[in-house]
């Protein structure tokens, strides 16, 4: 997905002289071509995430469309007040693009994990929050939102799903509707594990790449079913509950740090977010 981020911004920068890329000393080799083509609009500004967000706000105030990029927890949790005040309170737009998601940096340990970015950013007034599931979704979401004057969050992962789904900002997708009385709702790359888990199970599957604004109308259509929210982060479950009178169960992160290393797959397996663990949760929801 990071490569797509580079490809999309490279293309946009050629068409729109207001596009500026600011890196927090991550992905700089990936952006070599961007730097060569648009040296005045490329800054590997350093490991100073608070300043990166504020500087993006300043650029936005003068009409630019900045993309700020580094590792997820450092740009979101660490810089939450800069996002809240310099972008949201001052109503200045910027594109916050992170890499690492929840556990892509599994073996770096919990300092590099991020559990709350989606949950906290959707609480910021005026913020748009997306979790693209693959390259196609990322490309479409960036193109539709990057220059709308609002702060928009794009949470990238190195492990996208391989489903080819329609992409429209703010709209969820019915991946499967069996007329079942259980609906699995999920977001982002974990969709691949969800689909493997429920291949032969009688459930509907509803998918979101946009968490804010969440698609109220689509969620309400499944109000009559038992809902299982499967997500490898916080934020989706809370967003779904903007729609009243739902019967949901959350299958996702525990209320503790995931203190193992290995790979994203190892951690997902440990906390029941591998296909087998998700399948078990779905079976339980079907029978409860």
């Amino acid at each position, binding site marked *: 997905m990071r490569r797509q981020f580079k490809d999309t911004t490279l293309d946009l920068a050629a068409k729109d002289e207001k596009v*500026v890329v600011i890196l927090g000393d991550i992905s700089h080799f990936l952006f070599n071509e961007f730097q060569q083509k648009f040296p*005045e*609009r490329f*800054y590997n*500004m*350093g490991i*100073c995430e*608070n*300043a990166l967000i*504020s*500087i*993006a*706000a*300043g*650029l*936005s*105030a*003068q*009409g*630019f469309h*900045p993309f700020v990029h580094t590792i997820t927890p450092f740009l979101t949790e660490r810089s939450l*007040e*800069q996002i809240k*005040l*310099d972008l949201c*309170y*001052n*109503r200045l737009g910027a594109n916050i693009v992170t890499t690492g998601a929840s556990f892509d940096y599994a073996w770096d340990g919990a300092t590099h994990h991020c559990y709350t970015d989606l949950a906290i950013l959707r609480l910021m007034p005026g913020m748009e929050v997306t979790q693209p599931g693959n390259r196609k979704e990322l490309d479409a979401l960036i193109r539709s939102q990057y220059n709308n004057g609002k702060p928009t969050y794009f949470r990238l992962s190195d492990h996208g799903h391989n489903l080819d789904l329609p992409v429209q900002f703010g709209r969820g997708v019915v991946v499967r509707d069996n007329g079942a009385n259980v609906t699995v709702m999920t977001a982002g790359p974990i969709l691949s594990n969800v689909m493997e888990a429920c291949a032969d199970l009688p459930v509907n599957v509803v998918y979101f790449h946009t968490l804010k604004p969440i698609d109220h109308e689509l969620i309400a259509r499944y109000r009559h079913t038992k809902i299982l929210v499967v997500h490898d982060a916080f934020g989706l479950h809370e967003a779904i509950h903007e729609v009243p009178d739902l019967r949901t169960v959350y299958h996702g992160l525990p209320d503790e740090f995931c203190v193992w290393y290995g790979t994203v797959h190892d951690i997902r397996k440990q906390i029941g977010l591998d296909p087998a663990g998700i399948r078990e949760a779905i079976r339980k929801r079907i029978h409860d």
Partner: protein
Amino acid sequence: MTPLGREIRALILKASRASGHGHIPTSFSIVEMLCAVYETMKHDPKNPQWDERDIFILSKGHGALGLYAVLAHYGYLPVEELNTFGAFQSRLGCHPDRFKVPGVELSTGSLGHGIAVAVGMALGFRLQKSPRRVYTLIGDGESNEGSVWEAVAVATHLKLTNLTVLLDANRSQVRSLPIPNPAERFAAFGCDTIEVDGHDLEALKRALTQPATNTRAVIAHTIKGYGCPTLVQNVFEWHRKSPKPDEFEKLMEELNAA
């Protein structure tokens, strides 16, 4: 004290007296700095959105009453509106709101933000090949924030000569985390640094108009409550206080004698 300095301080005292709110000592320490900026930068009170204007950001947002008084003096606000300071439906809060107050370029309050946004604006002007300039006023207490130094490091690395940082060196942090030698600190970060008496309007104007080889830091040595000995001697008591009628009369007498 110049007549201008006395006039602005009188506006601050009257607004604090009328409204029941105030950050008088910190507002008094920045009066000459604010006046020097508005006397030298390109701006048009009749057209606050003029697209060739320079930008001023009050990063230490708690000096807003001083900023409002200066904005009123230069014609951005009716002077009588200062008396609404802090009222429920007033445009003039304890910290400035860019959507409410003409001439306010950024809503500030939490410390360590305005200076970094100013860096982004200065970079934007450079990218636009615009001659517009950015000025930001920070506090020495504010300079406890790490984000101030992130911003200064980026600004000097990018050699943003169109950015001027004014430090209100009023020694308010002697009680906690002071900067022993602020000029040395800013110079160490790469700034083109000038030290001045922060209550000398002409010296400040000279510092703001001299060409700079890198981001300009103006270290303005100031006194909290400057102009009224009562405020200077009891600075902590007066930090957020509004004067009662007899106190107001005394402060005005002191100010007129300054």
